[in-house]
């Protein structure tokens, strides 16, 4: 039994497997299938300062080895979360992390401040890369200045572990990561979804109500691996890797590329209990290869 524990910028985790925001609800939705407290970290869905209805239906399109979505951060707002959801989930015995999004810097800061007061939320994932909202979201994640501004502002207001989720829809993600690191982030997670589009040739219309949406699933894994590789060489803070991870082998590829932990997203839709298989599969790999700890294979790619 290898040591699976990792520490992400101060966040201690029993294992390096987290669930990606927007794919695992608040955890409860999956409680029938496994003991969700065995997951290293659960990143609950994107939370904003105010209630958001999100985008109209249709919000999803199946694509080759993946899917597009344009949910658009539907959520009841941070106050509702604190009042109604937090009390239900604070007891879950693992890292409950809140994904925070906003339309402007003040929104991000106000939301982060409120969550900073929740003792059982040890970290937030700052989403500066949502491709499905008109204002904010990805806008902050596609320039160094934009990323720096929102991260440094939130850093002042938020005292716990700050993970910043990066957009892959950029020319140079390593530069963005460096700005985020300089602005005080404890960790970066990548990749968020690639901006894509699906068309119904028969109806001659876009499939998604918003025309474009965010691409996820195994189809994006090669791009995600490349970006994790580039970013992990550019920054000193730990990198959380995600993008099309379906099994333990995929997860190990991300560790080798330089990720200290990983997030499982779309795979939860195909196998609701996949996180358990990934955790045990990582352990099997480490045992078979004779590694004592998962930390030994982080960035261990032989080039």
């Amino acid at each position, binding site marked *: 039994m290898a040591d699976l524990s990792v520490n992400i910028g101060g966040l201690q985790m029993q294992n390096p497997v987290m669930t990606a925001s*927007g*794919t*695992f*609800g608040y955890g409860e*939705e*999956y409680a*029938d*299938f496994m003991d969700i407290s065995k997951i290293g970290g659960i990143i609950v*869905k994107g939370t904003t300062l105010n209630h958001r*209805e*999100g985008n*109209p*239906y*249709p*919000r*999803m*399109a*199946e*694509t*080759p*080895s*993946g*899917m597009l*979505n344009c*949910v658009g951060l*539907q959520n009841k707002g941070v106050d509702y979360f604190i009042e109604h959801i937090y009390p239900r989930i604070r007891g879950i015995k693992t890292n409950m992390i809140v994904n925070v999004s906003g339309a402007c810097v003040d929104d991000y800061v106000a939301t982060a401040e409120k969550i900073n007061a929740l003792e059982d939320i040890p970290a937030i994932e700052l989403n500066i890369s949502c491709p499905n909202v008109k204002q904010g979201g990805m806008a902050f994640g596609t320039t160094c200045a934009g990323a720096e501004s929102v991260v440094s502002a939130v850093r002042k207001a938020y005292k716990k572990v700050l993970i910043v989720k990066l957009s892959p829809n950029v020319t140079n993600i390593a530069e963005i990561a460096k700005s985020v690191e300089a602005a005080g982030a404890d960790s970066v997670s990548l990749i968020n979804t690639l901006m894509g589009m699906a068309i119904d040739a028969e109806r001659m219309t876009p499939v998604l109500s918003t025309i474009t949406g965010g691409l996820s*699933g195994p189809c994006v894994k090669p791009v995600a691996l490349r970006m994790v590789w580039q970013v992990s060489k550019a920054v000193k803070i730990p990198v959380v890797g995600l993008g099309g991870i379906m099994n333990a082998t995929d997860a190990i590829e991300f560790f080798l590329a330089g990720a200290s932990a990983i997030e499982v997203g*779309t795979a*939860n*839709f*195909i*196998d*609701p*209990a996949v996180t358990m298989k990934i955790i045990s599969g990582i352990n099997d790999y480490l045992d078979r290869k004779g590694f004592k700890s998962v930390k030994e294979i982080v960035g261990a790619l032989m080039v």
Partner: protein
Amino acid sequence: MKKHIVDLKIVANDKLGDKHILMKLTSDVPLPEMRPGQFVEVRVDHSASTFLRRPISINYVDKEKNELWLLIQVVGEGTRQLATMEVGDKLNLVLPLGNGFSDPQPQQKTLLLIGGGVGVAPLLQLGNYLKQKGFQPMFLLGARTHKDLLLMHEFEKVGRVLVTTEDGTAGEKGFVTNHSILTTEKIDKIYSCGPTPMMKAVASFASKSGIDCEVSLENKMACGLGACLCCVTETKEGHKCVCSDGPVFNIKDLTWQI
């Protein structure tokens, strides 16, 4: 109701006409409790272009034989692949999902189950359930032509079956909403599943006549668990997930222009 991930064994996979299959599945252990109107998410293996699970409504649960029936319309590559599966093959399902139809009120005596196309599927399970509860469910089933009527013999075992066909080759000619029963009998509750235009017509009739009416919606889904928020529909309380808040909604909660 507790959700499960199960591998079920196919005991029958029969073609009904050229567009549908009736798949019967069983397990060595007793199947979990399932409410009428709930659905399952099927994993489609060996299909290069099918990435997500496919939501399929529960057609019937045979407690004696420990069988789950799925009535499937063959539309895309995913369902085509399901149609090629053979007796003995295993199918991976997540079940039971969704809320299901609600029980009638004690004073609701005349229950009409209106279905169209493959939308008749959940009504068989619902009819059986209502019958066991001591109600006398009536079916009103619509199709384009008599060939498209599905599982008629099964419905006839459960209760009175009324039919409309667009070409008049069976039952009354026209749409379900043209059927004489709607004017000759006082209906206390309508349960409906079928194409959206049909359900909207049914909902329109029901609301005008002040009849309690539940409809089962079908949206494109990813997780099936209420986690991804992809399959939402507009309700008077905002966006709700068809997979977890539905698929069954009372029409008074929807924002349909009817």
